[in-house]
């Protein structure tokens, strides 16, 4: 960059001018930072201040600017200069607000501010203005896989928004399980009576919609491409195959019922009178068609006593059955008990439950059933023994703490759970799949290097950031909705489908502009690889949490930029450091590390490097500053996109530069992870577990590098962590590597 023109702007507002010597900082920017242009301003985010910068960009030809003011998370609208590379030095939240306003703290506070400016100048010179991702796609259609209540709702919502939809359904008919229901749980006031499912109208609306192309009896044979340009081969039973180009995909493949034959102790498969909820819906529909009451399946006899067994094969701790609660089944049993009570109040209907869970407004529905005389017994059913045309239901009464039994139940309904239809579990190695009796069938048949279907978290449900981005899967542009994501009822499925549809539309629009999807929404940077240095180690292709990187025939990585979420996990993984972003690379962080002015061994001023995740840890630090929760002046914080992007070279650089300790602050990992890039913090923890050897080689203590899990709410805890670590460093002493760099 021959024509790089750099500028530093130092704000004196918000008390910065009173707390630190900005004239000294300006000198540092000029002499050490080698900035072409340095300006101090009393109130930089004011219209006049912003105009100063804008004028410099226009008239002076500034291409790179560092703003030493507030945190990069603040005043983003005022300091929005899309035509220049911009670095921010956090003097407000990160320095003056995080330090006590006392005379003895003055010197160290000034050092902190000086260093952050040095770091900003260092980073700036290594940055480039992102040119935008050339890997764009222009397909604006949506593919919906699955024609149940989730899929139908998704298709209809997309159409209403003006997008075209291809809806693929495996079976011959639309509607899924919901269409097979006699009635559904009430979903509006007064939540008292079972309601018509409304599926006929929904199906009619979808089939009659000109924007929606419905393909039944069809499965996905192959999915290739990226957001904005997916190519999907659809194979149709007894018909020619189709290829559709779509911009985003919604997987609404729903669930299968748990096989009651796996529950012989509860009479499953042993008697025609022991049925699951789906079968009862069928019986109810048939009976209503004939205008008759529901009859006993074994002999068509009258039903006088019906028992509902909740949590059948669910919430199982033995590992034999489903470990989770499906959430919808208590409501379904309440509804089905009403089928009997409404027809004939003399029928004994008993619901044996452990915890009755009726989410939403189901509590009113529960009350309504109690009013109708449905008996609810808190207990655990131990066995259902068929005897002739009746069954004896033995259970433990959990309130009276004793064994009890219902001697002759004519019908026993087992409330079994939802098993997600999520296709192939890509985490199971192929040799184990080969040993399986029933081979899993892929749903999407993705051509991605990392596997054919969406990654799963636990229990077969598709993985997503449960709190922040529930519909986003680990495959950009592909969204899961409905019970394939988590167990749910019809109301929740429809809501889920609507959310996923809106997300899918965002993905289509972002793909067209070459921008990132969440959480770095709108980011124009993308990973750039210098293939000539690549050693084909495959770490980036294996570790990318989003399956963005494939391999070519020569086993070089092939980046699919629009599948990328810009977390930088590939950059952290790369042992030869050939992967970088224009505005975030090994060099931009390395330059910051090296820019810190390192006091000598005898100064009693240790230096601690904090690599803080920009999603949770960095905001927590900012908020700690806002709350004036002070912390040690010896830390220098560098925000990183994700701990997954931390390359071990930074650790080496920092230790060589003389840092006495390194703290890595990232999100929680594991099954209940909080990492916004799903796998980043887990990978970082794994990589750092290997750092100990390196430290030993350098004859350094293991405590010199620590990682900690931080949540965005840890506003009081983060300063405490820093101070505790500073005390620890004080204890083990200064780094012996100081002064050798």
């Amino acid at each position: 960059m021959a024509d790089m023109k750099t500028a530093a702007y130092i704000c004196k507002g918000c008390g910065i001018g009173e707390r630190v010597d900005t004239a000294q900082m300006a000198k540092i920017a000029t002499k050490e930072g080698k900035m072409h242009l340095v300006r101090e301003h009393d109130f930089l985010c004011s219209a006049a201040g912003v105009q100063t910068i804008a004028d410099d960009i226009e008239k002076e030809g500034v291409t790179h600017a560092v703003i030493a003011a507030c945190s990069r998370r603040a005043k983003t609208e005022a300091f929005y200069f899309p035509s220049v590379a911009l670095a921010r030095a956090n003097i407000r939240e990160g320095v003056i607000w995080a330090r006590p306003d006392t005379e003895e703290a003055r010197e160290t506070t000034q050092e902190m501010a000086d260093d952050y400016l040095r770091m900003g100048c260092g980073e700036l010179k290594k940055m480039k203005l992102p040119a935008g991702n050339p890997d764009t796609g222009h397909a604006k259609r949506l593919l919906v896989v699955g024609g149940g209540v989730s899929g139908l709702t998704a298709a209809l919502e997309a159409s209403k928004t003006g997008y075209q939809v291809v809806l693929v359904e495996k079976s011959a008919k639309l509607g899924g399980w919901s269409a097979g229901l006699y009635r559904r749980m009430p979903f509006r006031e007064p939540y008292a009576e079972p309601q018509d499912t409304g599926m006929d109208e929904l199906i009619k609306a979808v089939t009659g919609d000109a924007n929606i192309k419905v393909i039944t009896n069809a499965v996905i044979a192959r999915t290739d491409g990226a957001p904005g340009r997916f190519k999907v081969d659809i194979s149709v039973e007894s018909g020619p195959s189709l290829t559709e180009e779509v911009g985003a995909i919604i997987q609404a493949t729903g669930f299968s019922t748990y096989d009651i034959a796996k529950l012989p102790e509860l009479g499953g498969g042993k008697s025609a009178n022991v049925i699951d909820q789906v079968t009862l819906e069928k019986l109810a529909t048939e009976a209503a068609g004939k205008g008759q009451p529901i009859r006993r399946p074994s002999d068509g006899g009258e039903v006088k006593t019906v028992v509902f067994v909740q949590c059948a094969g669910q919430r199982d701790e033995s590992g034999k059955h489903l470990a989770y609660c499906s959430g919808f089944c208590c409501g379904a049993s309440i509804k089905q008990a009403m089928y009997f009570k409404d027809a004939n109040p003399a029928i004994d209907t008993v619901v044996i439950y452990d915890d009755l869970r009726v989410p939403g407004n189901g509590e009113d529905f529960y009350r309504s059933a109690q009013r109708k005389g449905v008996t609810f017994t808190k207990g655990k059913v131990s066995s259902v023994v068929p005897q002739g045309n009746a069954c004896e239901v033995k259970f433990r009464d959990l309130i009276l703490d004793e064994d009890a039994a219902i001697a002759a139940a004519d019908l026993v309904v087992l409330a079994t759970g939802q098993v997600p239809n999520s296709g192939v579990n890509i985490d199971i190695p192929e040799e184990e799949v080969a040993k399986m009796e029933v081979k899993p069938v892929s749903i999407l048949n993705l051509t991605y290097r990392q596997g054919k279907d969406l990654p799963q978290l636990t229990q077969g449900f598709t993985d997503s950031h449960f709190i922040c981005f529930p519909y986003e899967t680990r495959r950009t542009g592909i969204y899961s909705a409905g019970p394939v994501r988590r167990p749910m009822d019809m109301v929740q499925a429809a809501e889920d489908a609507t959310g996923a549809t809106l997300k899918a539309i965002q993905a289509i629009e972002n793909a067209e502009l070459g921008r990132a999807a969440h959480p770095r929404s709108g980011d124009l940077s993308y990973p750039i690889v210098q293939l000539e240095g690549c050693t084909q180690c495959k770490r980036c292709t294996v570790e990318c949490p989003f399956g963005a990187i494939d391999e070519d025939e020569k086993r070089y990585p092939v980046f699919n930029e629009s599948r990328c979420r810009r977390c930088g996990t590939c950059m952290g993984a790369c042992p030869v450091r050939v992967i970088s972003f224009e505005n975030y690379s090994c060099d931009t962080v390395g330059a910051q590390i090296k820019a810190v002015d390192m006091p000598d061994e005898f100064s009693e001023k240790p230096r601690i490097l904090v690599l803080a995740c920009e999603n949770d840890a960095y905001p927590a630090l900012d908020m700690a500053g806002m709350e004036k929760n002070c912390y040690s002046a010896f830390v220098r914080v560098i925000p990183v996109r994700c701990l997954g992007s931390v390359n071990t070279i930074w650790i080496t650089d920092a230790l060589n530069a003389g840092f006495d300790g390194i703290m890595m602050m990232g999100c929680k990992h594991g099954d209940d992870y909080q990492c916004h890039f799903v796998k980043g913090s887990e990978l970082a923890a794994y990589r750092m577990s290997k750092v100990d050897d390196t430290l030993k080689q350098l004859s350094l203590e293991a405590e010199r590098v620590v990682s900690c899990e931080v949540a965005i709410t840890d506003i009081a805890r983060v300063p405490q962590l820093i101070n505790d670590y500073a005390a620890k460093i004080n204890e083990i002493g200064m780094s012996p590597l100081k002064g050798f760099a």
Partner: protein
Amino acid sequence: MGDLNQQMLDKYRNNFLHEVEEKVDDGEWVKMCMQCGVCAGSCTFGPDWEHTPQKIFMMIRAGKREEVLSSHSMWLCTSCYNCMVRCPRELPITHIMHGLASYAHRLGLAPKNQPTRDFSLIFWENCTKTGRVNELRMTISVYFREGFVSGVKKMWTLRNIGRGLFFAKRLNPLELFVSHGCKDKDGLRRALKKADEIEARRRGYEVQPRGYSS
């Protein structure tokens, strides 16, 4: 009248919940209990109960007629109303407890020598006779409920209070012989009889006098 208990057994057979709904004051609320246990946790008598309200309701649903009606629990209720205030389902628990106690008593299934029940009977008999409570006679009846020696002992323990009451003119020894009463004793009796009739009609009993012993 015949044996009311047998009559009810014949009428309701195994459906005790239905019996409670029809015969017990506020009994129709029992089915609305959701077994959360807040009543049991709130009860001031909690640990001393044989069965908490939660259990009583569960036993009713499970058809444990004998056990419920002969339980001491309902008689221990101090009417503090903690359970009723806290019940998330807004069940009138205190009232149901009293209703069950009263029904058990009517059927002759209430526990024998239950102090609360004995006191209630003594009180009712005492006050309905003249329309006013004869405190001296009532106290003596209660003290001597468990026999002569125990009665004398109790009186001796409380002698100072008795003396105090006497000097404060709150205790008239002559009351032992002559009770003062309300103006229209016959009217009162007629009113009570009428109330009995109304209740009996509502609950479907044959009329039977109050204060019967069991």
